[in-house]
């Protein structure tokens, strides 16, 4: 099997911030929080996810708290992008602020665990190498893509305040 692209880690609807970043871990720093990320749904996730893999969710991914550790934990684990039909409004902003792409894609139901994916955020597409299918996703507005490409809001402000 090809190792091109990244592996899909598939989760369901309404993945909330308590699953992404459990409250009890929040005073301990991102490494601890990340080690519990999505652990209640898939105990292997934090340990097995590889740099460049994708998290694929259902509707309302990241609903709940404003805690940005929910997005930061996925970044910390090396996740390349989160792909879902819709996102919690605050999670979406938090993801971009950490340089984590959040792609709105109505067709995530076609993706199964372990499928190899590549993305093209400029063109608005997700390619499923395993199934040889291409899904359409919304393009990210250009000025928000600038924030993502800078590595997040802080590096973006660093570069643009000089």
């Amino acid at each position, binding site marked *: 099997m090809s190792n091109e692209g990244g592996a899909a880690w598939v989760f369901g609807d309404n993945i909330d911030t308590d699953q992404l970043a459990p409250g009890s871990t929040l005073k301990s720093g991102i490494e601890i929080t990340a080690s519990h990320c999505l652990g209640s749904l898939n105990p292997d996730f934090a340990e097995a996810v590889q740099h460049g893999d994708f998290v694929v969710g259902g509707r309302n991914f990241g609903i709940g708290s*404003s805690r*940005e550790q929910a997005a930061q934990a996925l970044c910390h684990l090396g996740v390349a992008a989160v792909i879902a039909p*819709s996102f919690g409004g605050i999670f979406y902003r938090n993801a971009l602020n950490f340089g984590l792409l959040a792609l709105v894609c109505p067709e995530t139901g076609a993706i199964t665990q372990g499928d190899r994916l590549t993305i093209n955020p400029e063109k608005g597409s997700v390619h499923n190498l395993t199934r040889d299918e291409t899904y359409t996703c919304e393009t990210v507005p250009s000025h928000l893509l600038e924030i993502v490409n800078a590595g997040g809001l802080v590096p973006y402000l660093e570069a643009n305040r000089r």
Partner: protein
Amino acid sequence: MGQTLAEKLIARAAGQDEVRPGETVTVRVDLAMMHDSGGPRRIGPILERLGAKVWDPDKVVLVSDHWVPAVDPQSAEILDITRRWARENNIKAFYDMVGICHVVLPQGGHLKPGMFVVGGDSHSTTGGAFGCYMFGVGSTDMAGVLVTGETWIRVPESIRIEWTGKLQPGVCAKDINLALCARLGLGGAEYRSVEYTGSLIADMDMEERMTLSNMAAELGAQAGLIAADETTCAWIKETGSDPGDTAPWQSDDDADYFATHTFDAGTLESQVAAPHSPANALPAGEHAGVKIDQAYIGACTGAKLADLRMAAEVLNGRQVASNTRLLVAPASHRDMRQANADGTLTKLMDAGAIMMPTGCGACAGFGGGILAEDEVCISSTSRNFQGRMGAQSSKVYLGSPYCVAAAAVAGEIRDPRDFLSEARKMSNAR
């Protein structure tokens, strides 16, 4: 075509005559509110890295409510960082351990109709009850606001949620929220701005309106607005602030809404949401008999003065069941003092309630009162996501303060109407 309240509020902040849904605009921020968990401990290092100062310390409100009171070296350090940062950055509006941010903010007279406010917490939708635009952001977003005084927003479509008629005795704003979550679905508003209207809302006091706007977050709404009226102005004046002119901050008659949902309050029953989603709400009687270990009255959603009074009405002259514990963490010090002055606290404590410090407490699993494996809790808070209030296998049911108090007395979930006085059951207004 006219504009909705949300569009008018965003347009003013963007310095434009009008905005339309879908466009992304840069807005000036009138007020930034943050707390100890997402605030200085995370934002301070970002400002240092950027070599930046707070753009306007007088437009920042800081509240220590999540890790209070400190229970270990980590929480003590978080609170210490918060206090030092407030001093070093000359933040005058710093509320340390005197209540939950969403309640302290309006009680301090910081919110006025027409304002554009960001809050470093998802329940920042609560501020929308005062006719201002307020929504939640994460810490990095907030750092951007503190550096520039600006942020961006994609203008949401608006949904109108109209409630007419009168609520039955023992039914309240929390029941409306749970019923809406069941009807529209968790996150069902999908980023749109919700506006609550109708004769029921017009008759509601500010605390109940705050409860409504609070759980716009669970609807997935970007904001939960209620246009300002005399009730709003009276509350703001009582805090010593000037509400200003509220006339501009009303939706136009010909404004365009994505959807309008109309409900009759008279047919609404007390609601209880089963684990692990607020959308699992059903009439309380459908969950009758579920045994509970802990009843929790707390949070910005469910422990304001009005909420404490609801619980006291059920608990008055009764006792918490054996093998059940009732914990009460008032939403603010002011609510606690007023509940003390009017005898509400006495009724709660005489019934066996255990009083906790004001703060976010067990709601998000940070403070005292968290749950052991397999324990069952009924809570007046807003979220019952798996593991949120403690152990992963614990189960949280959500209900109104009436429902929580009734379950505390019975040791199991019951319809709270069983515990209202005959006189109250006859009356048709809360």
